[in-house]
């Protein structure tokens, strides 16, 4: 091998070593970042799964508590009211009541029994399982209508198909929460509920013509201030793998759109 060839070869090998080293380090950086990203995603997935479990447990506890309350109302208070009504009926027949006090009391108790039944259904998660989401929402609407403060419409579009009991009960609780918020804060006169059964999806829309609110400002509030209810709604819908969009503007009412993919 000539002198220059040996030197050239040394030079080329040296340069190749430099290049290999640089490529090695760059590859290492890329592999490290890929692994770190994978680890981050795994951690995030674990966190989501953990949050889901917590929320699921919370919902189970809430359902159980509400069910116990419903049972207690139905079996105890309901029975007592029914007995009281029977006595009043008997009294109504045997006593002369010029001012109709007994009759009026009897009617009030009758009304209370009806309201109590309605409330029991509202509390009882099994009602949703037994009669379905639509019936449960109708029952809720009847309760609200009795206040005579709101005009409330329920529209059902499409052919009904089941979205699963677990999802239905979560959805029902969310609807209750939204309606409760509307009644308490919106000062609305009209409420529209639209259920749409579309192929492979289910959408729910609740719209009111109330005073609305600044959604962005509420989202930015810290945990000690209010806004927990809205966050809860979002979390619950996420739990059942749905999306929830709340659109609200001051003096322009509020619209909540929920979509579940089946």
């Amino acid at each position: 091998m000539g002198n220059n060839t040996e030197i050239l070869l040394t030079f080329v090998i040296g340069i190749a070593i430099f290049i290999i080293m640089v490529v090695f380090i760059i590859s290492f950086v890329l592999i490290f970042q890929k692994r770190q990203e994978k680890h981050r995603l795994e951690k995030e997935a674990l966190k989501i799964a953990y949050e889901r479990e917590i929320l699921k447990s919370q919902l189970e506890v809430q359902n159980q508590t509400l069910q116990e309350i419903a049972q207690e109302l139905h079996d105890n208070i309901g029975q007592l009211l029914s007995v009281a009504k029977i006595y009043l009926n008997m009294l109504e027949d045997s006593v002369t009541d010029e001012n109709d006090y007994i009759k009026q009391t009897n009617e009030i108790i009758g009304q209370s029994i009806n309201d109590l039944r309605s409330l029991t259904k509202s509390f009882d998660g099994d009602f949703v399982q037994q009669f379905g989401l639509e019936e449960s929402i109708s029952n809720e609407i009847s309760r609200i209508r009795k206040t005579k403060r709101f005009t409330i419409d329920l529209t059902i579009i499409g052919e009904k198909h089941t979205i699963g009991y677990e999802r239905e009960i979560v959805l029902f609780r969310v609807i209750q929460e939204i309606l409760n918020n509307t009644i308490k804060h919106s000062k609305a006169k009209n409420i529209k509920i639209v259920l749409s059964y579309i192929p492979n999806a289910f959408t729910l829309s609740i719209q009111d013509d109330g005073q609305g609110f600044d959604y962005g400002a509420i989202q930015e509030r810290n945990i000690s201030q209010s806004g927990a209810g809205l966050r809860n709604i979002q979390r619950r819908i996420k739990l059942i793998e749905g999306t929830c969009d709340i659109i609200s503007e001051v003096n322009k009412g509020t619209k909540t759109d929920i979509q579940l993919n089946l």
Partner: protein
Amino acid sequence: MTWSILYFTILATSSILGIVNFKFLNNSNKAFLLLLLCTIFAEVTAYIIVYVTQKSNFLVYHIFSPLQCAIVFWAYFLDTKKPIFIYVIPVMLVTGLVLSLFIQPLPAFNSYFMEIELLLFCVLALNYFRELLKIENEIQLKDYPLFWINSGLLIFAVVNIFVLGAYNFFIKPENLKNPLLNTVFFYFRFISNCLFYSSFSVAFLVKQNSISK
């Protein structure tokens, strides 16, 4: 002369950055700062010996190389907390002493020790890369100061193994005094040294994370 100025500027810059940030450096980087200061001292001494006394400066490297090896292993121990790195130190010091006294005594250059040292540096650097891949946190790679030094060390070690290996074993004896070949070797070593000691500057400036935390 110009290249020496550039080399010493890099050493000085890294040292100044290390001294200025000394309070914030992690223990491993404090050890690397010590290595940097020892390197400056050794290089200046070697330079003076050659250019002032016109004698061989190999004695400096017979002393400096084992010391360099010891400090590097100590610094890696401080970052990784692996006790094996501490056990290597006395072994390498004894090996350096034996080689310098019996196998390659002065006036010979201690190339055998350097080859062993550089091979160990390669293993050390590759092992550190492997350890980095085991980490499961969200700290960015750039915020591990030893990553920078480790990359510099790997390039330094591989290039110097090539240079020393080629010089000792592959180049024909008649070519060894060829000025062109010596220039090629000089630039390879110069660039790898500059990269290695520049990596100290970066390591002294980034967040001071270590893999053992």
